[in-house]
């Protein structure tokens, strides 16, 4: 199901599943500086239950809190192995 249909951004990907950031990298320059770079491994560790609440996101071995609109600026390829 979700695994066969890769989600386009980090905002939508299933919880805990590793993905790779798409080749163009994150849309926001600051996100790139924080390490959201092309082909980097990312996953969502936690989602808020409130609409608009922040996501907990792991990129490589660092963990960040991102708002939904920020996570939506991180395009991802299909699930990584």
């Amino acid at each position, binding site marked *: 199901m979700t695994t066969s249909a890769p989600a386009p951004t980090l905002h939508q990907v299933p919880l805990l599943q590793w993905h790779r950031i798409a080749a163009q990298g994150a849309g*926001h*320059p*600051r996100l*790139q500086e924080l*390490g959201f770079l092309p082909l980097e491994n990312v996953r969502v*560790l936690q989602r808020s*239950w409130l609409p608009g609440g922040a996501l907990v996101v*792991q990129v490589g071995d660092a963990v960040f809190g991102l708002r939904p609109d920020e996570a939506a600026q991180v395009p991802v390829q299909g699930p990584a192995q």
Partner: protein
Amino acid sequence: MSAAPGRPKQARAPSGGSDVRAATSVGAQVDISGLAQRRLALLGNPNCGKTALFNRLTGSQQKVGNYAGVTVELKRGLMKTAAGRSVTVIDLPGTYSLNAGSQDEAVACGVVLGHSLSERAPDLTAVVVDATRLRRGLRLVAALRRLQVPMLVLLNMMDRVRAQGRSVDAAQLARTLGVPVVEATGIRPEGTDALRQLLDDDTLWHQPHPASQTPLSVESQARADDAQAQAWLAAAGLDQPLGEHAWSRRLDRWLLQPVVGTVVLLALLFLVFQAVFAWAEWPMGLIEDGTTAVGEWISAALPDGLLRSLLVDGIVAGVGGVLVFLPQILILFFFIPVLEESGYLPRAALLLDRLMHAIGLSGRAFIPLLSSFACAIPGIMAARTISDRHTRWTTVFIAPLMTCSARLPVYALLIGAFIPARKVGGLSLQGLVLFGLYALGILSAVAVAWVAKQWGRARGQAGPLMMELPDYHWPRAKDVAIGLWQRALIFLRNVGGIILALTVILWALSSFPVAPAGYTGAPIEVSLAGRIGHALAVLFEPIGFNWQIAVALIPGLAAREVVVSALGTVYALSQTGDDVGTALAPLIAADWSLATGLSLLVWFVFAPQCLATLAVVRKESGGWLLPVSMAAFLFGLAYTAAFITYRLAAAWGWA
């Protein structure tokens, strides 16, 4: 675009033991640089252990926190190299890149690149790299290399790498990077020996400085620097990722879980405030008894006269009244650094981001605002880590509405005097009132932020969150103890300095001119302070303040808690005959109406009178507009709220 690894000029890379020793002996002969102090800057990612390293190098003790932005001001210290030469070390705020995202990062980048107006470019920059996060640290190294900034690399957190059974070969890395690399840690005494030896190498200090560069677009810089970092790691055989901090991930699964996390956060905040009041009771009782005993002893030992009046009515009544609150302040200042160093605070900020976002702030504002419960000054300085201007200044503006610890003495005095010590639904009424005062401050802050949001909406939306959640670690008892000790010293220095001075001045103003012989009222009525108070009372009469309160508010401008000592002195001198020497609380309880007591309590929720806070706001904003409008706004708010409270209470029949 990025420089090839190992450019010839910097290929010399002393890092192993023998290289360093050779370099030391050469450096020692050529030490003629006593004229200009050599300057070393410490640069690194947030949470890479830079500040602990700085403490170890310079011996100066300061705050070490596990949260981005603890180092909000430049800190300087002196260190000695192995050969005994002095070097100035500058501790810079943590940064992810050389493109500043917030003001504290701008400070770091500006200094290293020589753009800072207040700080000359350092002779040498030491990039502190967390060995468990090599790639990220090396991105910063790559950026500095691209700009040809003279540097060396310090590998920190190697103990964590070893704990995983891995290693990082510093010599190999140095050859690859073309700059010196040494291991350094702040948590062991011998952890900085290699660096101290390396700094005796003179050639390190005499490298050409870069000319100004035209910057690339931020995005291509980030990619180019990362590509360089990865190339270096591959070349040094270090491109195997380390295992992640499993303990932190497991803890986060619970602490960041929406429901469990929120419950834990609320429980923690409750515990903090509970502790401030419950744990402090016993030591406060001791200090109170001690003050009373000293006062009685002096009264017995000295004949009635000016000296006895100065000591008992002025100093003991004034200073003792403030000293009582030391335990509460220490307890508050115990919890905040513990939460900060453990790495929990950014998690709390994350959980609260949704709420804060709704009022136009960001979760990042949580740390400055929490600090403001201790004191607004560190809170306002911590707001520098907020990159968005609107969010930052709104945070600064509402920081004084968080009930700071200096207001506690005032609340405690007034609540003790006016609120009966009985239970309501199993809870102490006094505690509930106190909670209500804190809540009133927070609610008004929310309202102000919300209004500011409506105002600022035209200028775009609130700033980004994008906040790192560092690995958890146990706060070190020594760091916490040092922090507490410094806090106690600052408080005692204030008590012994400004509070004592103001108390004596107020005592003098309240005692002179001396009442003429045969005057039947309290002598303070004819004194200078009495007359000023009577003049000011016209302004404060509508909100129920009498002239004694008006007098006490003036020295309270220096620090809010001084109001308690001022009231102590004014009332001690207002007594006639047998009343002298009675504790302050029952005195004001008998003298003021309940409406006045409540009005003064509400006044202090907004109380604008803290010159130190206004001075910091002026410094931070670089102009008078913000501090002046803040003082006017808070005064208006305090006056209005106290007026409403007084009138309502009076209508209720409590006047």
